């Protein structure tokens, strides 16, 4: 497999990591796109989903948005946005497309997390005289946390993946190494870029799993619960 050894050579050539088109610069662009959009998507989707889950309405909305999200091709949306007047504003098409694709998993998982909290527990908390706000902060949110974080993880991985496609619409990011490789008919570079992108996606998934564990509001209680048993 010449391409595989070629990819290794490409990755170990220092020159490929430097400059405007180098790996470091593309990685920085990639992380900038992904970070900004994940933050924006969380700010938009999470409060809405948590509120709807708390009052128990909007299930159809959560489902339909996630179904529509699945049917719309990322590539088509990116290219459509690039051809609109927005395309003249640099990163705008990429950022908008990324946010749109990050919202559905966040919305669906956070809503479901809230709805799947045991009704008996909620009733018990109400019986103890908790107000709506207390119920939300002390009961529903901690119990829904694992599913909410699943949503954040899916959204994060998806944003990283979608940021790769931005390269096909002529934007930056690690995907550019792949598309440039295709244009130069340089298969080792294509494979090297693909390896970098795949590794980044797996790394982001791993980091988000760790972050999720670290901030688990029930981390202490879960551990002591295990010990008690």
């Amino acid at each position, binding site marked *: 497999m010449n391409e595989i050894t070629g990819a290794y050579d490409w990755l170990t050539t220092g020159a490929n990591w430097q400059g405007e088109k180098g790996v470091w610069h593309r990685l920085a662009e990639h992380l900038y796109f992904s970070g900004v959009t994940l933050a924006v998507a969380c700010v938009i989707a999470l409060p809405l989903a948590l509120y709807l889950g708390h009052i128990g309405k909007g299930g159809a909305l959560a489902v339909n948005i996630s179904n529509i999200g699945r049917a719309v091709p990322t590539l088509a949306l990116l290219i459509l946005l690039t051809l609109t007047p927005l395309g003249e504003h640099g990163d705008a098409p990429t950022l908008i497309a990324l946010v749109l694709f990050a919202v559905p998993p966040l919305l669906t998982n956070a809503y479901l997390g809230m709805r799947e909290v045991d009704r008996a527990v909620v009733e018990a908390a109400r019986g103890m005289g908790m107000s709506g706000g207390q119920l939300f902060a002390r009961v529903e949110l901690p119990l829904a946390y694992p599913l909410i974080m699943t949503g954040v993880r899916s959204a994060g991985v998806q944003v990283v993946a*979608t940021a790769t496609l931005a390269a096909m619409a002529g934007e930056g990011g690690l*995907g550019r190494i792949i598309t440039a490789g295709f244009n130069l008919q340089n298969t080792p570079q294509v494979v090297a870029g693909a390896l970098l*992108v*795949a590794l980044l996606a797996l790394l982001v998934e791993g980091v988000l799993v760790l972050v999720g564990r670290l901030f688990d509001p029930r981390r202490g209680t879960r551990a002591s619960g295990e010990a008690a048993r």
Partner: protein
Amino acid sequence: MAQQNCLVTNDWICGEYLRTRSQELIDATLQHVGITLASVAIGLAISLPLALLARRWRFLAGPILGVTTVLYTVPSLAMFSLLLPFFGLSVSLVVTGLVLYSLTVLVRNILAGLQAVPDEARDAAKGMGYGPLRLLWEVELPLALPALLAGVRITTVSTVALTTVGAIVDYGGLGTLILDGLDTTFKAQVLTASVLCVLLAIVADVLLLGLQRWLTPWTRVHRIRTSRADREAAVAKVAEPA
């Protein structure tokens, strides 16, 4: 007159484009449908035995689900590019990538469906002298069918969308038209192909829903309590790759 000029003025919506390029659109749509059908069919043929293996031998379930989930994490552009050394610029490259993506949802749903088969049903069939194969074919698979078909629906819809990325190797069906439209800033072509792509996903989903209803008439009787939206959302929990 204005209508004829829409190709010149590069409008988003252009009847003249539809008339003059209909053959190109039909070819791209057929390629898109072909790639999707092949991917989902092969995906199903691979995931059924995988799900059966995972159910039969517990220790295999972890690795099978783990590997298919990791595959799901790989971005599509990278997936297709990583397969390039093995397949070259070919349609098999696109189909293979899409098959790999389909495994996650399909294996999970088939496994969940099989595990949800009530023990009483299994015991009753065994008591009636059903062998393992007949038990699987006549009792377990039909009962697992709703979950299986739900997985097929999710997979089909996301495969239709993902096929567009195959444009990078010129086998993206409508995606190829979309990408070409970007290079030539041909707005009508980009919009028309995008809309067709979404329509294709919706049509496929509705057809599969019909198939599901037709094949599993008994599921309609027991529709009680749990709100339909909440149940469907539970199925939709896995996010789609991009």
